[in-house]
């Protein structure tokens, strides 16, 4: 163990230089051909399979697994990608343990589901590694559509629109496309530049132009887009991070977990990303776990994830919780931050334990902290948006907003569950609905 791990404060290079590559390698190494055949053979090819029902994009899972089992992984990939154009990323980041694999009858039978996620990755990687894009554009419709946000919802929408023959211009605030796939997901879930490779592959359909550095309300306005384009799809992210509501939270060293994750993902050398000796992450979702685990992987000596409710209420799946625990992250539950202490920079953070009704117990906990990452949810920001439902854009089942020619999907739209796969489904379905409306087939 490098002595640097014991140094207090926030500093880069806590680990020996050679250690980082292994630390941030693939969480689930790819199945090789034989492993894929063995895993595929476990599928029972269920009738009206529960895994399909559990998949937000309705991928025909038994069919694609049978296609793998019979030696046609590219046909399997096409089955997947027809339903979910980001099937490669979803294979890596989907919480399969609460979706398809939870529904797998072999999970019920023996507690060991078919490795659906890894098989999906096997098939999509097999196709994409050859640079094959199996879809082509339909006859040109002459319609031009603006998509705002180059994340999973926006790109899925753009791809489906391009397939249907429309011309699409995607506007995104960031310098790279991909949205949270590029900026918001733990590095070990999508190593080797997969997010960009997938976008490059997706764009091979043609008919999609991406304009960067254009955030909604800052560079582009919804009214302006409506005036120029035949329709608009809003697939924007949640830019605002909720505040802790704790005294002293403006001290140095207190930051947003999403920014930490983005910094890590964009770093050319992760060893140069500074990390504290004592790190506290506040929150109970995937972002909290991604931040906590990666803090540990960067060499933080003590990482504590603090959640205000019990583990059963955490949005992070049991698999994610166990992953965090296995990396040495301590999980503290039933505690809310009340004060951040320190002279300029955080030195310590104080929590109060709460009961299941979120009532304070008077009992407190103090944790040493060089860094505090907030992962307690993000909010939609922006002006001139369609009517909201709560804090998100109100949409119907087809993604239609209160504005006639504007659709929305993904994290910014109401009703979703903040999953990549759901965003893809919403973008895809909105595209189909836009097509129906624009082509006058809207019954």
């Amino acid at each position, binding site marked *: 163990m490098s002595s640097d791990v014991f140094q207090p404060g926030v500093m880069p290079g806590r680990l020996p230089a050679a250690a980082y590559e292994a630390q941030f390698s693939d969480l689930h190494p790819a199945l090789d051909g034989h492993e894929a055949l063995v895993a595929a053979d*476990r599928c*029972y090819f*269920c*009738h009206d399979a*529960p895994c399909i029902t559990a998949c937000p994009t309705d991928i025909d899972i038994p069919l694609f697994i049978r296609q793998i089992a019979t030696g046609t992984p590219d046909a399997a990939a096409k089955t997947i990608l027809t339903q979910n154009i980001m099937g490669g990323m979803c294979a890596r980041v989907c919480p399969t343990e609460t979706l398809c694999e939870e529904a797998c*009858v*072999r999970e*019920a*039978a023996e507690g060991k589901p078919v490795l659906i996620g890894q098989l999906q990755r096997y098939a999509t990687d097999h196709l994409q590694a050859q640079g094959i894009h199996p879809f082509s554009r339909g006859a040109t419709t002459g319609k031009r559509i603006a998509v705002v946000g180059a994340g999973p919802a926006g790109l899925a929408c753009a791809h489906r629109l391009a397939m249907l023959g429309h011309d699409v211009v995607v506007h995104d605030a960031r310098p790279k496309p991909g949205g949270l796939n590029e900026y918001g997901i733990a590095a070990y879930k999508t190593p080797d530049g997969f997010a960009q490779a997938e976008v490059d592959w997706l764009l091979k359909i043609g008919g999609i132009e991406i304009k960067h550095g254009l955030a909604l309300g800052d560079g582009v306005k919804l009214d302006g887009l409506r005036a120029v384009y035949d329709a608009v799809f809003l697939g924007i992210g949640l830019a605002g991070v909720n505040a802790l509501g704790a005294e002293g939270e403006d001290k140095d060293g207190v930051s947003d977990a999403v920014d930490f994750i983005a910094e890590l993902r964009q770093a050319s050398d992760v060893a140069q990303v500074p990390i504290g000796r004592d790190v506290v992450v506040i929150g109970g979702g995937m972002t909290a776990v991604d931040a906590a685990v990666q803090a540990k992987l960067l060499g933080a000596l003590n990482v504590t994830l603090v959640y205000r409710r019990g583990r059963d209420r955490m949005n992070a799946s049991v698999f994610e919780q166990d992953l965090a625990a296995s990396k040495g992250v301590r999980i503290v539950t039933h505690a809310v931050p009340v004060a951040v202490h320190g002279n300029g920079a955080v030195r310590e953070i104080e929590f109060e334990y709460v009961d299941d009704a979120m009532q304070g117990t008077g009992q407190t906990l103090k944790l040493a902290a060089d860094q505090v990452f907030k992962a307690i949810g993000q909010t939609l920001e922006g002006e001139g948006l369609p009517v909201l439902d709560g804090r998100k854009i109100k949409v119907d089942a087809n993604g239609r907003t209160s504005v006639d020619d504007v659709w929305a999907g993904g994290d910014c739209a109401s009703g979703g569950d903040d999953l990549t796969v759901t965003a893809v489904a919403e973008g895809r379905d909105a595209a189909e609905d836009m097509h129906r409306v624009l082509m006058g087939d809207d019954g």
Partner: protein
Amino acid sequence: MADLTTDFLGIKSPNPFWLASAPPTDKEYNVRRAFDAGWGGVVWKTLGSEGPPVVNVNGPRYGAIYGADRRLLGLNNIELITDRDLYTNLEEIKRVKADYPDRAMIVSIMVPCEEAAWKAILPLVEDTGADGIELNFGCPHGMSERGMGAAVGQVPEYIEMVTRWCKQYYSKPVIVKLTPNITDITKPAAAARAGGADAVSLINTINSITSVNLDTMSPEPSIDGKGSHGGYCGPAVKPIAMSMVSEIARGEHTRGMEISGIGGITTWRDAAEFITLGCGNVQVCTAAMTYGFKVVQEMISGLSEWMDEKGHTSIADFKGAAVPNVTDWQYLNLNYVAKAVINQDLCISCGRCFAACEDTSHQAIAMSEDRTFTVIDEECVACNLCVNVCPVEDCITMEAMTPGAVDPRTGKVVQPEYANWTTHPNNPAAKAAE
């Protein structure tokens, strides 16, 4: 531990597991390893006439059919009889038998259908001290094109003739190995009996092409772009072998013959099944070629444990026990009515039973919104397909209806009496066409 010693034609062996005549028994080195591993006997790989030995192909000799995880389910081979010198084999047989006097040593022979050829080789084999001979009338490839192997086994008159020569020129037991590549297995078996054979062994391998290479359009195994049919063996052939064994065990002209069972025997259970169908012992090849000689340890322990559990003290205790229950279709009880029953506690809701029944059978399984699958007794003919496709053992069972109850499918009362095709009032062709 149950007594596994076997007396087959007076040949004693410590257990009923013999290695069949095949590559595993081609050399002294292999056979010593087999005996050291615990095999009760071997049938030495087939010897040919004196003179230059046959030449095998120099490319692949085997093709395979795989199940999950590349589990070998079926193997096919195009290897010929031994390609080693006759005298080398004879010397080795003599040495090994002398060193393992308690093990059965049978020598497989295949020479041309001429009396002189048999008359020449039999004394040489007798001199080795081996316990008996097995006549290879079964190999379906290669040698059969030269009038030997299956070419003989397919002509009952030749079987009888050659068997008679062997009984004339050889003093110890003669086993005739039968080819399954024939319509009625009892014909060659009866011919062997007529020729004086002490036993038959079956089955030899089945004519087969395991696969076609879709790039080269050559059957596999491919020799320079061409393939020839081979002999199929392994777990896949066991049902065919057991049916043929049972035909001989209960055949009018063959019942009572000693049988050495061969065909896909992979576990102790397979062996036990062959023995209940009338076999005095079994011969194994593919299982050994797949897993090595150590598999015999599981066969020995498994058979012994099962015999203890059932109270069998010797192989003879259950030999042929299932033969009386093998019958013709026409004698099956048509008054026996069963219905499928799905155990909801075991059901994992995969719906395979539903797909099979709804798409391909009798629409006798209902599926609810919450994926509960139930049998519709009014439609169920008890075909068993749901049981066969269900991935959970014992989840679906066939339950016999009690006589006196009404079968909801037919509306008829289930009768207690036995009634078969020949007596059922509604069945046409109650009497077979002559």
